[in-house]
C-alpha cells in the first residue's frame, strides 16, 4: 500500500469509479477507522473488543491522561487500605498485545458531519465510526458555592486521581473526635452505591485511627442503592459513627463556603473537619459540546447499538449514555462497550446488528471482610434496556459472616478480572 503512488492510486480509483474516496485511502492499511474517546471502563474495553472481534479494524484510543485511575477501589485508597498504584491502569497492553493505537491528548471537538475528531494539540483524527466514553463532569454551582476552586478545598473525589489523594490526606490530617460530612447527590449519578461504600470504609478508618469521630451522610434522596443492606451492616459495624440524613429530614446540602469550611442544608450549618461534596453530574463535557446530550445532561442512544440518536456515526457508552435501567457503573460501561463494538462491526459490514445483552454487577465493601452486591442481566424490552424479570437483585439480608466475607473476596476478584478484561 505504501509503495503505491498517489497518482497510480487515483488512476485505479478512477477505473473503479469511486474517485471521491481519496481522503480515506490511508485507512486501507488497517481497515475501517474507529476512534474511541476515553480510556476508562467503556473506552478501553471498546478498543480491546473491537480488535478482538475484527483485527483488521484501525482502532485509535484517545485519552487526556497517560494512564487511567479507576474510581472502583478508589474508596479503599481513601480509607488507607490500598495505594494509588493499585488503581492505576496503563494502556501499554492495549497497544502491544491488541494493536490499539493510543494517543495522549484532550479531545476538544467532534465534527459529526466531516467525521473528524480534533484534539487540543491540534491533531485531527478522521473516523468511520466514533465511540465516546468520557465519563462524567460536574454541575458546578448546583450546590451554591461549590465550583471547581471549592473542590480543591472540599474534594468530590468522584473522578479518581489527585482528588482521591486530597481526600485521603485530609482524613489523615483530621483530629480524633472530628466530623466528616459526605454530601450525596440525587439520581442519576455515577455509581449509585458509591457514596455509601465510601462512608463505610471511611468509618472503618475513623474507628481505628480517629476514635470518637462521626460521619454524617447528608443526602439529596430518601432511598439509595442496597440501602437495607448498608443499614444492616452499619448497625453491626459502625453504629456509633455513621448517621445518614435523608432529604426528608433536611439532608440535602444546598450551599457551601469552602474557604470557611461551612456546609449548609436549608435548616442547619455544619463545620466539618473533612467535607466530601459529591455534586450533581452530567455526561463528560466533550459529549455536551458535541451536541450528544439532551436536556437531562446525558446522551440518548439506540438501545441495541448505542449509536447516538442525535449525531449519526457516533456511539456513546458508559456513564455519559442514557442506558435505560442500567446503572452508571464500570461494569455497565464495559458490558455496553462489547455490545457497541459488535454493533459497529456489523454496521460497517452492512449487516444488521444483533440484539443487546449485557450485565451489571456492583460489589460494595463495608469493610475488608464484609461485601455486598447487586447484579442484573439486561436486554431490550419494549424498545428500552431493562433488567430480565426473575434475574438479578441484591445479596440476601441477614447473611452470616462467611457469606459477607466471601462476597468481599469476590469484590477484589471482580476488580482484578475487570481490570484484566478491560485494559489487558
Amino acid at each position, binding site marked *: 500500500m505504501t509503495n503505491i503512488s498517489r497518482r497510480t492510486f487515483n488512476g485505479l480509483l478512477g477505473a473503479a469509479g469511486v474517485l471521491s*474516496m481519496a481522503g480515506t485511502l490511508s485507512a*486501507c492499511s488497517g481497515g475501517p*477507522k474507529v476512534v474511541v474517546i476515553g480510556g476508562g471502563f467503556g473506552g478501553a474495553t471498546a478498543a480491546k473488543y473491537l480488535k478482538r472481534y*475484527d483485527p483488521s479494524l484501525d482502532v485509535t484510543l484517545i485519552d487526556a491522561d497517560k494512564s487511567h485511575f479507576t474510581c472502583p477501589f478508589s474508596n479503599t485508597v481513601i480509607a488507607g487500605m490500598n495505594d494509588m498504584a493499585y488503581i492505576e491502569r496503563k494502556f501499554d497492553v492495549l497497544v502491544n498485545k491488541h494493536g490499539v493505537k493510543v494517543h495522549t491528548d484532550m479531545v476538544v471537538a467532534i465534527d459529526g458531519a466531516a467525521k473528524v475528531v480534533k484534539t487540543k494539540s491540534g491533531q485531527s483524527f478522521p473516523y468511520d465510526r466514533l465511540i465516546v466514553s468520557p465519563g462524567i463532569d460536574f454541575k458546578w454551582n448546583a450546590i451554591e458555592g461549590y465550583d471547581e476552586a471549592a473542590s480543591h478545598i472540599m474534594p468530590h473525589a468522584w473522578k479518581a486521581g489527585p482528588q482521591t489523594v486530597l481526600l485521603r490526606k485530609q482524613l489523615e490530617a483530621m483530629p480524633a473526635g472530628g466530623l466528616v460530612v459526605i454530601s450525596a447527590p440525587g439520581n442519576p449519578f455515577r455509581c449509585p452505591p458509591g457514596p455509601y461504600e465510601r462512608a463505610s470504609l471511611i468509618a472503618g478508618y475513623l474507628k481505628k485511627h480517629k476514635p470518637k469521630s462521626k460521619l454524617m451522610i447528608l443526602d439529596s434522596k430518601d432511598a439509595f442503592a442496597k440501602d437495607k443492606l448498608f443499614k444492616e451492616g452499619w448497625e453491626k459495624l459502625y453504629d456509633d459513627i455513621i448517621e445518614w440524613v435523608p432529604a426528608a429530614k433536611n439532608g440535602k446540602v444546598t450551599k457551601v463556603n469552602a474557604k470557611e469550611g461551612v456546609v449548609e442544608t436549608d435548616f442547619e450549618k455544619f463545620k466539618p473537619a473533612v467535607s466530601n461534596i459529591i455534586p450533581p453530574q452530567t455526561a463528560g463535557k466533550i459529549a455536551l459540546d458535541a451536541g450528544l446530550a439532551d436536556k437531562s445532561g446525558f446522551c440518548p442512544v439506540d438501545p441495541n447499538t448505542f449509536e447516538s440518536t442525535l449525531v449519526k456515526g457516533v456511539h456513546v457508552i458508559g456513564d455519559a449514555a442514557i442506558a435505560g435501567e442500567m446503572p452508571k457503573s464500570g461494569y455497565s460501561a464495559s458490558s455496553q462497550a462489547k455490545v457497541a*463494538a459488535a454493533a459497529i462491526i456489523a*454496521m460497517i459490514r452492512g449487516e444488521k446488528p*444483533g440484539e443487546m445483552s449485557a450485565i451489571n454487577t456492583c460489589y460494595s465493601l463495608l469493610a475488608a471482610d464484609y461485601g455486598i452486591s447487586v447484579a442484573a442481566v439486561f436486554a431490550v424490552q419494549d424498545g428500552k434496556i431493562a433488567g*430480565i424479570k426473575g434475574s438479578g437483585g441484591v445479596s440476601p439480608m441477614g447473611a452470616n459472616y462467611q457469606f459477607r466475607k466471601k462476597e468481599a473476596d469476590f469484590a477484589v476478584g471482580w476488580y482484578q478480572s475487570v481490570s484484566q478484561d478491560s485494559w489487558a
Partner: protein
Amino acid sequence: MRGIPATLAVCLAFGLALVPAAAKAADPVAVMADACSGCHGTDGHSIGGMPAFSGKKQDELTKALRDFKSGAKEATVMDRIAKGYSVEQLDAIAAYFASRKK
C-alpha cells in the same frame, strides 16, 4: 456493496485489507457470553479471586450453569445471573466458552 462504508469498499476492491472471514467472534452469542468476562476475566481466564473456568469441558459448563439457574448449585451471585438467561442461552454460552482459547 450497499451499506459497506467507502473506505472498506475501496480497500476490498483492491484486496488491500481483507476482513477475516472467520469474524464469528462478533456474533450475538459471543456478545452475550463476553458480558461474563467482567467477573471471570476474558474467556474465563480469571487471574484473581473469581473462579476461572477456561479449560472446562462444555458439559461441565452446561451443567454448572443449569444448576445455578435451578438453584441446585450453591452460589453467592451466580444464581442471580443465571436466571437472566433461558436454558438454551446458557447452553450456547457454555458451548462458546468451551470453544475459546484454553
